[in-house]
Protein backbone atom coordinates (compact mmCIF):
# COMPACT_ATOMS: atom_id res chain seq x y z
CA UNK A 1 0.00 0.00 0.00
CA UNK A 2 2.51 2.59 1.13
CA UNK A 3 5.04 1.24 -1.41
CA UNK A 4 3.10 3.17 -4.05
CA UNK A 5 4.77 6.29 -2.79
CA UNK A 6 8.26 4.94 -2.41
CA UNK A 7 10.93 5.55 -5.01
CA UNK A 8 13.25 2.78 -6.24
CA UNK A 9 16.86 2.95 -5.02
CA UNK A 10 18.29 3.37 -8.55
CA UNK A 11 16.27 6.52 -9.15
CA UNK A 12 17.01 7.90 -5.73
CA UNK A 13 20.75 7.60 -6.12
CA UNK A 14 20.84 9.20 -9.56
CA UNK A 15 18.67 12.08 -8.40
CA UNK A 16 20.88 12.93 -5.46
CA UNK A 17 21.51 16.67 -5.47
CA UNK A 18 24.91 18.04 -6.49
CA UNK A 19 25.61 19.09 -2.92
CA UNK A 20 25.40 15.51 -1.67
CA UNK A 21 27.66 14.23 -4.46
CA UNK A 22 30.18 17.00 -3.80
CA UNK A 23 30.06 16.03 -0.16
CA UNK A 24 31.04 12.44 -0.90
CA UNK A 25 33.76 13.67 -3.27
CA UNK A 26 35.17 15.81 -0.47
CA UNK A 27 36.27 12.63 1.32
CA UNK A 28 38.33 11.43 -1.63
CA UNK A 29 41.92 12.38 -2.42
CA UNK A 30 41.68 15.25 -4.90
CA UNK A 31 43.14 13.35 -7.85
CA UNK A 32 40.49 10.66 -7.41
CA UNK A 33 37.69 13.19 -7.25
CA UNK A 34 39.15 14.84 -10.38
CA UNK A 35 38.73 11.53 -12.19
CA UNK A 36 34.95 11.76 -11.75
CA UNK A 37 34.95 14.65 -14.22
CA UNK A 38 34.57 12.14 -17.04
CA UNK A 39 31.56 10.36 -15.59
CA UNK A 40 29.04 12.57 -17.31
CA UNK A 41 28.39 16.18 -18.28
CA UNK A 42 26.63 16.76 -15.00
CA UNK A 43 29.50 15.30 -12.98
CA UNK A 44 32.17 17.11 -14.99
CA UNK A 45 32.36 20.31 -12.90
CA UNK A 46 31.30 18.86 -9.54
CA UNK A 47 34.80 18.02 -8.27
CA UNK A 48 35.82 21.64 -8.71
CA UNK A 49 33.08 22.80 -6.38
CA UNK A 50 34.40 20.69 -3.53
CA UNK A 51 35.66 22.81 -0.65
CA UNK A 52 38.13 20.21 0.57
CA UNK A 53 41.51 19.62 -1.03
CA UNK A 54 43.56 16.55 -0.21
CA UNK A 55 46.97 16.14 -1.80
CA UNK A 56 49.26 13.19 -1.16
CA UNK A 57 52.58 13.03 -2.98
CA UNK A 58 52.81 9.25 -2.70
CA UNK A 59 50.12 8.87 -5.37
CA UNK A 60 52.38 10.63 -7.88
CA UNK A 61 55.58 9.57 -9.61
CA UNK A 62 57.70 12.43 -8.28
CA UNK A 63 57.46 15.89 -6.82
CA UNK A 64 57.44 17.53 -10.28
CA UNK A 65 54.22 15.77 -11.35
CA UNK A 66 52.75 16.32 -7.89
CA UNK A 67 53.37 20.06 -7.91
CA UNK A 68 52.03 20.28 -11.48
CA UNK A 69 48.80 18.68 -10.29
CA UNK A 70 48.44 20.94 -7.25
CA UNK A 71 49.05 24.10 -9.28
CA UNK A 72 46.59 22.92 -11.97
CA UNK A 73 43.87 22.32 -9.42
CA UNK A 74 44.41 25.68 -7.75
CA UNK A 75 44.16 27.38 -11.16
CA UNK A 76 41.15 25.42 -12.40
CA UNK A 77 39.17 26.14 -9.29
CA UNK A 78 37.10 29.27 -9.15
CA UNK A 79 39.28 31.80 -7.33
CA UNK A 80 36.39 33.12 -5.28
CA UNK A 81 35.49 29.66 -4.01
CA UNK A 82 36.81 29.25 -0.47
CA UNK A 83 39.03 26.38 0.58
CA UNK A 84 37.59 25.06 3.79
CA UNK A 85 39.87 22.15 4.33
CA UNK A 86 43.40 21.50 3.01
CA UNK A 87 45.51 18.45 3.59
CA UNK A 88 49.01 18.20 2.20
CA UNK A 89 51.34 15.24 2.62
CA UNK A 90 54.68 15.45 0.85
CA UNK A 91 58.42 15.79 1.21
CA UNK A 92 59.80 12.35 0.50
CA UNK A 93 60.92 12.86 -3.10
CA UNK A 94 64.45 13.93 -3.78
CA UNK A 95 63.21 16.78 -5.99
CA UNK A 96 61.11 18.28 -3.19
CA UNK A 97 61.10 22.06 -3.26
CA UNK A 98 59.94 23.91 -0.12
CA UNK A 99 59.21 27.10 -2.09
CA UNK A 100 56.32 25.41 -3.86
CA UNK A 101 54.86 24.23 -0.57
CA UNK A 102 55.18 27.76 0.82
CA UNK A 103 53.26 29.05 -2.17
CA UNK A 104 50.50 26.47 -1.73
CA UNK A 105 50.16 27.37 1.94
CA UNK A 106 50.10 31.10 1.21
CA UNK A 107 47.35 30.62 -1.36
CA UNK A 108 45.29 28.50 0.96
CA UNK A 109 45.62 30.76 4.00
CA UNK A 110 44.01 33.57 2.04
CA UNK A 111 40.96 31.55 1.09
CA UNK A 112 39.14 31.25 4.39
CA UNK A 113 40.76 27.98 5.44
CA UNK A 114 39.28 26.29 8.49
CA UNK A 115 40.97 22.93 8.58
CA UNK A 116 44.69 22.74 7.77
CA UNK A 117 46.65 19.51 7.85
CA UNK A 118 50.34 19.56 6.91
CA UNK A 119 52.32 16.34 7.01
CA UNK A 120 55.85 16.78 5.81
CA UNK A 121 58.07 13.80 5.23
CA UNK A 122 61.33 15.63 4.66
CA UNK A 123 64.42 14.24 6.38
CA UNK A 124 65.62 16.19 9.43
CA UNK A 125 68.43 18.00 7.67
CA UNK A 126 65.95 19.53 5.25
CA UNK A 127 63.15 19.95 7.77
CA UNK A 128 60.41 22.21 6.54
CA UNK A 129 59.83 25.51 8.34
CA UNK A 130 56.25 26.51 8.87
CA UNK A 131 55.54 29.79 7.05
CA UNK A 132 54.57 32.61 9.40
CA UNK A 133 51.34 33.34 7.54
CA UNK A 134 49.79 30.25 9.13
CA UNK A 135 50.26 31.65 12.63
CA UNK A 136 47.99 34.60 12.04
CA UNK A 137 45.40 32.73 10.00
CA UNK A 138 42.47 33.55 12.21
CA UNK A 139 39.87 31.46 10.39
CA UNK A 140 41.43 28.16 11.49
CA UNK A 141 39.37 25.80 13.62
CA UNK A 142 41.52 22.70 13.14
CA UNK A 143 45.30 22.64 12.77
CA UNK A 144 47.34 19.47 12.41
CA UNK A 145 51.09 19.67 11.88
CA UNK A 146 53.54 16.83 11.53
CA UNK A 147 57.33 16.93 11.05
CA UNK A 148 58.11 20.62 10.81
CA UNK A 149 60.14 23.20 12.64
CA UNK A 150 58.73 26.37 14.05
CA UNK A 151 60.76 29.41 13.33
CA UNK A 152 60.84 32.05 16.04
CA UNK A 153 57.69 34.13 16.00
CA UNK A 154 56.22 36.97 18.01
CA UNK A 155 52.53 36.31 17.91
CA UNK A 156 50.09 33.54 17.28
CA UNK A 157 46.44 34.37 16.75
CA UNK A 158 43.96 31.53 16.56
CA UNK A 159 40.73 32.91 18.03
CA UNK A 160 38.63 30.05 16.59
CA UNK A 161 41.01 27.12 16.91
CA UNK A 162 39.37 24.16 18.63
CA UNK A 163 41.65 21.30 17.61
CA UNK A 164 45.44 21.30 17.60
CA UNK A 165 47.56 18.24 16.86
CA UNK A 166 51.33 18.62 16.90
CA UNK A 167 53.54 15.64 16.09
CA UNK A 168 57.30 15.66 15.65
CA UNK A 169 57.61 19.42 15.83
CA UNK A 170 60.57 21.35 17.12
CA UNK A 171 60.50 24.71 18.78
CA UNK A 172 63.78 26.50 19.43
CA UNK A 173 62.78 27.53 22.95
CA UNK A 174 60.00 26.47 25.35
CA UNK A 175 58.68 30.03 25.31
CA UNK A 176 57.49 29.44 21.75
CA UNK A 177 55.38 26.46 22.64
CA UNK A 178 53.90 28.44 25.50
CA UNK A 179 53.27 31.41 23.19
CA UNK A 180 51.66 29.08 20.68
CA UNK A 181 49.20 27.71 23.21
CA UNK A 182 48.53 31.20 24.54
CA UNK A 183 47.23 32.09 21.10
CA UNK A 184 44.53 29.38 21.27
CA UNK A 185 41.98 30.66 23.80
CA UNK A 186 39.13 28.32 22.83
CA UNK A 187 41.15 25.16 22.34
CA UNK A 188 39.25 21.97 23.13
CA UNK A 189 41.26 19.12 21.66
CA UNK A 190 45.04 19.06 22.11
CA UNK A 191 47.33 16.31 20.93
CA UNK A 192 51.07 16.64 21.42
CA UNK A 193 53.44 13.91 20.41
CA UNK A 194 57.20 14.20 20.21
CA UNK A 195 57.49 17.92 20.46
CA UNK A 196 61.14 18.75 20.95
CA UNK A 197 62.38 21.57 23.07
CA UNK A 198 66.00 22.36 23.73
CA UNK A 199 65.52 22.85 27.45
CA UNK A 200 63.09 21.72 30.07
CA UNK A 201 61.69 24.70 31.90
CA UNK A 202 58.36 25.94 30.64
CA UNK A 203 57.10 28.30 33.26
CA UNK A 204 53.56 29.09 34.17
CA UNK A 205 50.65 28.98 31.78
CA UNK A 206 47.06 29.25 32.84
CA UNK A 207 45.08 26.12 32.21
CA UNK A 208 43.48 26.25 28.76
CA UNK A 209 39.94 27.13 29.79
CA UNK A 210 37.89 25.21 27.20
CA UNK A 211 39.98 22.07 27.21
CA UNK A 212 38.00 18.90 26.67
CA UNK A 213 40.39 16.28 25.37
CA UNK A 214 44.16 16.07 25.76
CA UNK A 215 46.55 13.45 24.44
CA UNK A 216 50.16 13.93 25.50
CA UNK A 217 53.17 11.81 24.54
CA UNK A 218 56.48 13.50 25.20
CA UNK A 219 59.93 12.16 25.88
CA UNK A 220 62.81 14.17 27.19
CA UNK A 221 61.11 16.94 29.09
CA UNK A 222 58.34 17.29 31.61
CA UNK A 223 55.09 18.44 30.08
CA UNK A 224 53.33 20.88 32.39
CA UNK A 225 50.02 19.15 32.92
CA UNK A 226 48.66 22.29 34.51
CA UNK A 227 48.15 23.50 30.95
CA UNK A 228 45.44 20.87 30.42
CA UNK A 229 43.99 20.85 33.91
CA UNK A 230 40.45 21.60 32.68
CA UNK A 231 40.25 18.55 30.42
CA UNK A 232 37.50 15.95 30.70
CA UNK A 233 39.46 13.28 28.84
CA UNK A 234 43.18 12.76 29.25
CA UNK A 235 45.55 10.27 27.72
CA UNK A 236 49.17 10.65 28.76
CA UNK A 237 52.21 8.59 27.94
CA UNK A 238 54.89 9.13 30.55
CA UNK A 239 58.57 8.30 30.52
CA UNK A 240 59.99 10.28 33.42
CA UNK A 241 57.61 10.31 36.31
CA UNK A 242 59.69 12.26 38.77
CA UNK A 243 59.29 15.31 36.54
CA UNK A 244 55.53 15.04 36.53
CA UNK A 245 53.69 17.53 38.59
CA UNK A 246 50.07 16.64 38.58
CA UNK A 247 47.60 19.46 39.06
CA UNK A 248 44.05 18.98 40.27
CA UNK A 249 41.89 17.92 37.33
CA UNK A 250 38.50 19.27 38.34
CA UNK A 251 36.60 18.06 35.26
CA UNK A 252 38.42 14.86 34.43
CA UNK A 253 36.13 11.86 33.94
CA UNK A 254 38.24 9.62 31.70
CA UNK A 255 41.96 9.09 32.17
CA UNK A 256 44.41 6.79 30.44
CA UNK A 257 48.00 6.62 31.64
CA UNK A 258 50.58 4.78 29.60
CA UNK A 259 53.85 4.01 31.35
CA UNK A 260 56.41 4.23 28.61
CA UNK A 261 59.94 3.02 28.81
CA UNK A 262 62.88 4.29 26.85
CA UNK A 263 64.97 1.48 25.50
CA UNK A 264 68.19 3.43 25.56
CA UNK A 265 68.33 3.54 29.34
CA UNK A 266 71.28 1.38 30.40
CA UNK A 267 69.49 0.20 33.46
CA UNK A 268 65.98 -0.65 32.44
CA UNK A 269 64.29 0.50 35.58
CA UNK A 270 60.62 0.64 35.28
CA UNK A 271 59.84 3.65 37.36
CA UNK A 272 60.01 2.70 40.99
CA UNK A 273 57.12 4.07 42.96
CA UNK A 274 54.71 4.40 40.08
CA UNK A 275 51.78 2.72 41.81
CA UNK A 276 52.10 5.02 44.80
CA UNK A 277 52.33 7.93 42.38
CA UNK A 278 49.13 6.64 40.72
CA UNK A 279 47.22 6.86 44.01
CA UNK A 280 48.45 10.45 44.41
CA UNK A 281 47.14 11.21 40.94
CA UNK A 282 43.77 9.74 41.92
CA UNK A 283 43.63 12.17 44.84
CA UNK A 284 43.72 14.94 42.24
CA UNK A 285 40.91 13.60 40.07
CA UNK A 286 37.75 13.99 42.16
CA UNK A 287 35.35 13.23 39.29
CA UNK A 288 37.16 10.35 37.64
CA UNK A 289 34.79 7.68 36.29
CA UNK A 290 37.00 5.71 33.99
CA UNK A 291 40.67 4.80 34.58
CA UNK A 292 42.97 2.87 32.27
CA UNK A 293 46.60 2.08 33.02
CA UNK A 294 48.75 0.56 30.32
CA UNK A 295 52.29 -0.59 30.98
CA UNK A 296 53.78 -0.21 27.58
CA UNK A 297 57.26 -1.58 27.78
CA UNK A 298 58.92 -2.36 24.49
CA UNK A 299 61.21 -5.35 24.20
CA UNK A 300 59.59 -7.20 27.04
CA UNK A 301 61.72 -10.22 26.31
CA UNK A 302 65.00 -8.53 27.21
CA UNK A 303 66.89 -10.18 30.02
CA UNK A 304 67.31 -7.29 32.39
CA UNK A 305 63.64 -6.75 33.01
CA UNK A 306 62.40 -9.29 35.49
CA UNK A 307 65.62 -9.52 37.45
CA UNK A 308 65.54 -5.84 38.17
CA UNK A 309 61.95 -5.99 39.31
CA UNK A 310 62.81 -8.57 41.88
CA UNK A 311 65.66 -6.47 43.24
CA UNK A 312 63.80 -3.22 43.34
CA UNK A 313 60.40 -4.48 44.34
CA UNK A 314 58.94 -1.58 46.20
CA UNK A 315 56.71 -1.80 49.23
CA UNK A 316 53.10 -0.88 49.01
CA UNK A 317 51.59 1.45 51.56
CA UNK A 318 47.88 2.28 51.60
CA UNK A 319 47.38 6.01 51.03
CA UNK A 320 46.29 7.88 54.21
CA UNK A 321 43.01 9.09 52.71
CA UNK A 322 40.87 7.22 50.23
CA UNK A 323 40.75 9.33 47.03
CA UNK A 324 37.36 10.97 46.58
CA UNK A 325 36.81 9.50 43.10
CA UNK A 326 37.01 5.99 44.53
CA UNK A 327 34.32 6.62 47.11
CA UNK A 328 31.67 7.67 44.63
CA UNK A 329 32.73 8.13 41.02
CA UNK A 330 34.94 5.44 39.56
CA UNK A 331 32.94 3.08 37.38
CA UNK A 332 35.51 1.23 35.34
CA UNK A 333 39.15 0.44 35.89
CA UNK A 334 41.30 -1.23 33.27
CA UNK A 335 44.85 -2.54 33.74
CA UNK A 336 46.56 -3.44 30.49
CA UNK A 337 49.73 -5.56 30.30
CA UNK A 338 49.26 -6.67 33.89
CA UNK A 339 52.09 -8.79 35.22
CA UNK A 340 50.90 -9.58 38.73
CA UNK A 341 53.95 -8.05 40.39
CA UNK A 342 53.65 -7.08 44.03
CA UNK A 343 52.72 -3.40 43.88
CA UNK A 344 50.59 -3.82 40.80
CA UNK A 345 48.54 -6.43 42.59
CA UNK A 346 48.30 -4.27 45.71
CA UNK A 347 47.05 -1.38 43.58
CA UNK A 348 44.38 -3.56 41.97
CA UNK A 349 43.40 -4.86 45.40
CA UNK A 350 43.18 -1.31 46.77
CA UNK A 351 40.89 -0.25 43.95
CA UNK A 352 38.66 -3.30 44.34
CA UNK A 353 38.35 -2.65 48.04
CA UNK A 354 37.71 1.08 47.99
CA UNK A 355 35.91 1.82 44.73
CA UNK A 356 32.36 1.81 46.00
CA UNK A 357 30.73 2.59 42.63
CA UNK A 358 32.86 0.27 40.52
CA UNK A 359 31.05 -1.74 37.81
CA UNK A 360 33.96 -3.36 36.05
CA UNK A 361 37.57 -4.11 36.84
CA UNK A 362 39.17 -5.25 33.62
CA UNK A 363 42.60 -6.87 33.63
CA UNK A 364 44.52 -7.75 30.48
CA UNK A 365 47.51 -9.84 31.34
CA UNK A 366 50.79 -9.85 29.50
CA UNK A 367 51.33 -13.47 30.44
CA UNK A 368 50.57 -16.15 27.89
CA UNK A 369 50.78 -19.26 30.06
CA UNK A 370 47.24 -20.26 31.01
CA UNK A 371 48.17 -21.70 34.40
CA UNK A 372 49.89 -18.55 35.56
CA UNK A 373 47.01 -16.50 34.22
CA UNK A 374 44.56 -18.63 36.13
CA UNK A 375 46.55 -18.11 39.33
CA UNK A 376 46.53 -14.35 38.80
CA UNK A 377 42.79 -14.41 38.26
CA UNK A 378 42.21 -16.48 41.40
CA UNK A 379 44.33 -14.16 43.48
CA UNK A 380 42.39 -11.14 42.25
CA UNK A 381 38.97 -12.66 42.59
CA UNK A 382 39.62 -13.38 46.25
CA UNK A 383 40.16 -9.70 47.00
CA UNK A 384 37.31 -8.07 48.92
CA UNK A 385 35.19 -5.75 46.80
CA UNK A 386 33.80 -2.47 48.04
CA UNK A 387 31.13 -2.41 45.35
CA UNK A 388 28.38 -4.99 45.29
CA UNK A 389 27.96 -4.73 41.51
CA UNK A 390 31.61 -5.01 40.63
CA UNK A 391 32.50 -7.49 37.90
CA UNK A 392 36.03 -8.72 37.42
CA UNK A 393 36.97 -9.30 33.81
CA UNK A 394 40.26 -11.03 33.01
CA UNK A 395 41.86 -11.96 29.73
Amino acid at each position, binding site marked *: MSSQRSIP*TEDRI*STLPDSVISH*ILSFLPTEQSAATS*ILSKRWNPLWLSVLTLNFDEQ*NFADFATFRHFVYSVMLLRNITLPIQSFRLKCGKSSDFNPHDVNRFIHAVVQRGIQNLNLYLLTPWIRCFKLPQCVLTCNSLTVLKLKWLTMDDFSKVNFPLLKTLHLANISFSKPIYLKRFLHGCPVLEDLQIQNVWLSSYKCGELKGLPKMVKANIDIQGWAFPFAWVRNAKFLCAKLYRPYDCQVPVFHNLTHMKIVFGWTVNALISWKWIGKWTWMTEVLQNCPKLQNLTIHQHFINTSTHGKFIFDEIVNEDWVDPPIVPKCLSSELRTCSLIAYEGLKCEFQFAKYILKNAKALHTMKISALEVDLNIKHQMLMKLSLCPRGSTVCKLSFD
Partner: protein
Amino acid sequence: MAQEASSSTSSKTISLKTGDGEIFEIEASAAKQMKTVQRLIDDLGDDITIPLHNVFSKELPKIIEYYKKDITGEITKDFEAEFVKDLNDDEVKVLFLAANYLDANKLFEFLSQNIADRLESKSVEYVRKYFGVENDFTPEEESKLREERAWSFRGIKEDE
Protein backbone atom coordinates in the same frame (compact mmCIF):
# COMPACT_ATOMS: atom_id res chain seq x y z
CA MET B 1 -3.60 5.89 45.61
CA ALA B 2 -0.32 7.11 44.19
CA GLN B 3 -0.57 9.02 40.94
CA GLU B 4 1.14 7.42 37.99
CA ALA B 5 4.19 9.47 37.11
CA SER B 6 4.09 10.80 33.56
CA SER B 7 6.87 9.40 31.41
CA SER B 8 9.67 11.89 30.77
CA THR B 9 10.48 12.63 27.13
CA SER B 10 13.80 10.86 27.44
CA SER B 11 12.22 7.47 27.97
CA LYS B 12 9.39 7.91 25.49
CA THR B 13 9.40 5.77 22.37
CA ILE B 14 8.20 6.65 18.92
CA SER B 15 6.71 4.16 16.45
CA LEU B 16 8.06 4.22 12.92
CA LYS B 17 6.45 2.44 9.98
CA THR B 18 8.63 1.49 7.03
CA GLY B 19 7.72 1.65 3.34
CA ASP B 20 7.01 -2.09 3.41
CA GLY B 21 4.65 -1.83 6.36
CA GLU B 22 6.76 -2.94 9.31
CA ILE B 23 6.75 -1.08 12.60
CA PHE B 24 9.81 -0.33 14.73
CA GLU B 25 10.20 1.48 18.03
CA ILE B 26 12.80 4.12 18.70
CA GLU B 27 13.59 6.33 21.69
CA ALA B 28 12.40 9.91 21.38
CA SER B 29 15.92 11.20 22.01
CA ALA B 30 17.25 9.10 19.11
CA ALA B 31 14.38 10.26 16.88
CA LYS B 32 15.49 13.82 17.57
CA GLN B 33 18.75 13.07 15.75
CA MET B 34 16.84 12.39 12.55
CA LYS B 35 15.49 15.74 11.46
CA THR B 36 12.93 14.33 9.02
CA VAL B 37 11.46 12.15 11.74
CA GLN B 38 11.43 15.04 14.19
CA ARG B 39 9.64 17.22 11.67
CA LEU B 40 7.00 14.54 11.16
CA ILE B 41 6.60 14.23 14.93
CA ASP B 42 6.17 17.99 15.21
CA ASP B 43 3.51 17.91 12.51
CA LEU B 44 1.71 14.69 13.36
CA GLY B 45 2.29 14.34 17.11
CA ASP B 46 4.31 11.71 18.94
CA ASP B 47 1.45 9.35 19.70
CA ILE B 48 0.79 8.09 16.20
CA THR B 49 2.93 5.83 14.05
CA ILE B 50 5.21 7.89 11.84
CA PRO B 51 5.21 6.71 8.20
CA LEU B 52 8.60 6.54 6.44
CA HIS B 53 7.89 5.76 2.80
CA ASN B 54 11.47 5.61 1.59
CA VAL B 55 12.97 3.55 4.39
CA PHE B 56 12.47 -0.19 4.53
CA SER B 57 12.56 -2.95 7.10
CA LYS B 58 15.97 -4.08 5.86
CA GLU B 59 17.79 -0.89 6.74
CA LEU B 60 15.80 0.77 9.51
CA PRO B 61 16.95 -1.61 12.28
CA LYS B 62 20.58 -0.86 11.40
CA ILE B 63 19.91 2.87 11.62
CA ILE B 64 18.15 2.43 14.94
CA GLU B 65 21.14 0.43 16.17
CA TYR B 66 23.48 3.31 15.28
CA TYR B 67 21.46 5.95 17.06
CA LYS B 68 20.91 3.75 20.08
CA LYS B 69 24.70 3.74 20.52
CA ASP B 70 24.84 7.46 19.78
CA ILE B 71 22.53 8.56 22.58
CA THR B 72 24.70 6.76 25.13
CA GLY B 73 27.70 8.59 23.68
CA GLU B 74 29.47 5.35 22.84
CA ILE B 75 30.15 5.74 19.14
CA THR B 76 33.82 5.00 18.61
CA LYS B 77 35.94 4.32 15.54
CA ASP B 78 35.85 0.63 16.45
CA PHE B 79 32.07 0.63 16.62
CA GLU B 80 31.80 2.34 13.25
CA ALA B 81 34.28 -0.08 11.65
CA GLU B 82 32.31 -3.00 13.02
CA PHE B 83 29.03 -1.41 11.91
CA VAL B 84 29.96 -1.46 8.21
CA LYS B 85 32.27 -4.46 8.23
CA ASP B 86 29.81 -6.98 6.81
CA LEU B 87 27.97 -4.63 4.49
CA ASN B 88 28.62 -4.72 0.77
CA ASP B 89 28.80 -1.55 -1.34
CA ASP B 90 25.13 -1.69 -2.29
CA GLU B 91 23.97 -2.17 1.28
CA VAL B 92 25.97 0.87 2.34
CA LYS B 93 24.43 2.81 -0.52
CA VAL B 94 20.91 1.94 0.65
CA LEU B 95 21.77 2.96 4.23
CA PHE B 96 23.28 6.18 2.94
CA LEU B 97 20.15 7.06 0.97
CA ALA B 98 18.04 6.34 4.04
CA ALA B 99 20.28 8.54 6.21
CA ASN B 100 19.95 11.28 3.61
CA TYR B 101 16.16 10.93 3.50
CA LEU B 102 15.92 10.90 7.30
CA ASP B 103 18.30 13.89 7.54
CA ALA B 104 20.32 11.93 10.09
CA ASN B 105 23.46 14.00 10.02
CA LYS B 106 25.93 11.94 12.02
CA LEU B 107 25.19 8.73 10.16
CA PHE B 108 25.17 10.62 6.87
CA GLU B 109 28.66 11.99 7.49
CA PHE B 110 30.02 8.62 8.54
CA LEU B 111 28.54 6.83 5.54
CA SER B 112 29.79 9.54 3.14
CA GLN B 113 33.30 8.81 4.35
CA ASN B 114 32.72 5.08 4.09
CA ILE B 115 31.41 5.30 0.54
CA ALA B 116 34.38 7.47 -0.46
CA ASP B 117 36.72 4.89 1.10
CA ARG B 118 35.03 2.09 -0.85
CA LEU B 119 35.17 4.00 -4.13
CA GLU B 120 38.79 4.98 -3.80
CA SER B 121 40.72 3.54 -6.73
CA LYS B 122 37.66 1.82 -8.20
CA SER B 123 37.26 2.06 -11.97
CA VAL B 124 35.31 4.84 -13.64
CA GLU B 125 32.71 2.32 -14.85
CA TYR B 126 32.19 1.05 -11.32
CA VAL B 127 31.58 4.54 -9.99
CA ARG B 128 29.21 5.26 -12.85
CA LYS B 129 27.20 2.16 -12.13
CA TYR B 130 27.22 2.82 -8.40
CA PHE B 131 25.68 6.26 -8.78
CA GLY B 132 23.46 5.33 -11.70
CA VAL B 133 25.20 7.84 -13.94
CA GLU B 134 24.50 7.78 -17.68
CA ASN B 135 27.51 8.63 -19.76
CA ASP B 136 26.39 11.43 -22.06
CA PHE B 137 29.82 12.16 -23.49
CA THR B 138 30.59 11.08 -27.04
CA PRO B 139 33.63 8.77 -27.30
CA GLU B 140 35.59 11.67 -28.81
CA GLU B 141 34.66 14.04 -25.99
CA GLU B 142 35.57 11.42 -23.42
CA SER B 143 38.98 10.63 -24.90
CA LYS B 144 39.74 14.36 -25.15
CA LEU B 145 38.87 14.78 -21.48
CA ARG B 146 40.99 11.80 -20.47
CA GLU B 147 43.92 13.28 -22.34
CA GLU B 148 43.52 16.71 -20.76
CA ARG B 149 43.29 15.26 -17.32
CA ALA B 150 45.80 12.46 -17.78
CA TRP B 151 47.45 13.28 -14.49
CA SER B 152 44.34 12.42 -12.54
CA PHE B 153 43.97 8.89 -13.86
CA ARG B 154 47.14 7.53 -12.42
CA GLY B 155 46.34 4.91 -9.83
CA ILE B 156 42.73 4.40 -10.88
CA LYS B 157 41.97 0.88 -12.02
CA GLU B 158 41.00 0.64 -15.67
CA ASP B 159 37.51 -0.55 -16.58
CA GLU B 160 37.18 -4.24 -15.90
